[in-house]
């Protein structure tokens, strides 16, 4: 099996998004997506921080070929990140196909992903191989089934660095063991508005889980979007880790729903006003910053969930979170834009998308 014969043009992707933004799946009013990634390294090679240029190139070749041979899906594309420009790398980060670290890395490295963008395989990130599966809604178990299967196929072709004591050996000891990070992206505007979000964080942290922003480690929270993921990777099996996250999510989602109900009960007019104003802003504004749009989309998304606004599809809103990011706007325009130009084009793009409805 080969990678797709025709080289993919990144600009072909710019006007749509991966399947994980469809707004389908369990609890998708609050749970945007479920994601699992596995960190793997090839035995008998140094980790990347100690690998020289030649070893890095060799690793990239080996892992790329083995991904090809493993017949993971029929439509995998491979992109060598060293051969594309920074805006295109930013674009892939915004789509969650590669990490920020991978985009900003050096030397031979790449990513393979299919048309649905459900599976992505990062080559020479912090570890030799990082496998990722993202699904729409609260679907961690299904994501695990998919990624376990991909991992099994690859394992037939590659000998992973593994020890019976420490499990899958990773460059950073925070990932050793299962090498697994499972995370769920949540939209929690009402808990934010009612200042209950801190309580959620404290409860979650007690379970050994961490809360992060939209783009993972070290990123700011914006658009009321939070990622909850496991911190420990050693000493518990993959299904056990998933079980812990799965047990806490329904409690958070029902807490968010309670907060929404309370907002409606106590101050329906104010809430409706806020939501309609945000919607109005999106429809008429001529310049919108990336920070502002996250806030506006978040409000409107909650409005759609509460049935206050019923003319926009959830999929459209979910997509707008991604399609209005700087890398996407620049790809859509086909040129580099400074921040003011982006604000103008962002506003125009959103107006156009909302007029189509």
């Amino acid at each position, binding site marked *: 099996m080969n990678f797709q014969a025709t080289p993919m043009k990144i600009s072909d992707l710019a006007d749509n998004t991966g399947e994980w933004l469809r707004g389908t799946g369990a609890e998708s009013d609050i749970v945007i997506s479920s994601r699992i990634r596995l960190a793997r390294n090839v035995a008998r*090679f140094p980790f990347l921080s100690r690998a020289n240029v030649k070893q890095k190139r060799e690793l990239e070749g080996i892992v790329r070929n083995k991904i090809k041979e493993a017949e993971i899906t029929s439509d995998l594309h491979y992109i060598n990140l060293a051969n594309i420009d920074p805006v295109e790398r930013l674009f892939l980060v915004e789509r969650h196909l590669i990490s920020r670290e991978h985009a900003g890395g050096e030397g031979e490295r790449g990513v393979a992903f299919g048309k649905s963008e459900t599976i992505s395989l990062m080559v020479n990130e912090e570890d030799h191989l990082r496998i990722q599966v993202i699904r729409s809604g609260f679907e961690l178990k299904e994501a695990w089934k998919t990624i376990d299967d991909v991992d099994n196929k690859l394992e037939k072709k590659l000998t*992973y660095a593994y020890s019976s*004591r420490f499990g899958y050996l990773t460059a950073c000891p925070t990932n*050793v063991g299962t090498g697994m990070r499972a995370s769920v992206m949540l939209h929690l505007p009402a808990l934010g508005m009612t200042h209950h979000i801190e309580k959620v964080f404290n409860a979650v942290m007690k379970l050994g889980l961490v809360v992060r922003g939209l783009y993972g480690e070290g990123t700011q929270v914006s658009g009321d979007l939070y990622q909850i993921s496991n911190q420990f990777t050693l*000493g518990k099996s993959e299904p056990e880790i998933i079980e812990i996250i799965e047990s806490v999510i329904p409690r958070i989602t029902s807490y968010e729903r309670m907060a929404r109900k309370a907002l409606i009960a106590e101050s329906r007019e104010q809430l409706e006003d806020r939501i309609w104003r945000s919607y109005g802003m999106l429809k008429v504004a001529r310049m919108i910053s990336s920070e502002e749009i996250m806030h506006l989309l978040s409000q409107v998304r909650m409005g759609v969930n509460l049935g206050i606004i019923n003319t926009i599809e959830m999929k459209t809103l979910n997509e707008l979170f991604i399609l209005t990011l700087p890398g996407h706007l620049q790809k859509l325009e086909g040129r580099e834009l400074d921040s003011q130009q982006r604000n103008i084009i962002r506003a125009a793009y959103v107006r156009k998308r909302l007029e189509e409805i």
Partner: protein
Amino acid sequence: MKCESCNKKHATVHLTEIVGTTKKERHLCEECAQGINTQLAKVPSPTEILTSLINQVAPEISEMSKIVCPVCGLSYLEFRSNGRLGCPMDYTIFRKGLIPLLEKMHGSTQHVGKVPSKAGKELIKKNELMQLRNELNKAVEKEDYEKAAELRDRIYELSGDTNED
């Protein structure tokens, strides 16, 4: 202000020395200060500073600090300062230092998750090797050199592509 030492030139260097709880200030000209500097300061390297710091904070690390991985060349100190290991072998080489770290990070030091099917094969191979080595010892004891040679060849054959762990 004049230099305390030569009492001639203008004092441009101001040193604060803390001994125990008493603070002592000294005001010197550049020349006199340099004289003191050469006495005092053989400027320590960053590694030396780090080592002395670590010795104060965590004495057990000082024992580990001399260890360098023969495979990738990473020292334990380098690992502790940037948090990244250099090769899979480091988990064995730095084991003593890693175990308490892993305990702190994960609350455990034993993997219980997925086992690659290949690792299963490796385990079988390891056991088989152990058995062959035992047989080899017995054969040598019995001076059955023909059998010993045969066993030796099989051991070489098997261990040729054995996985490190």
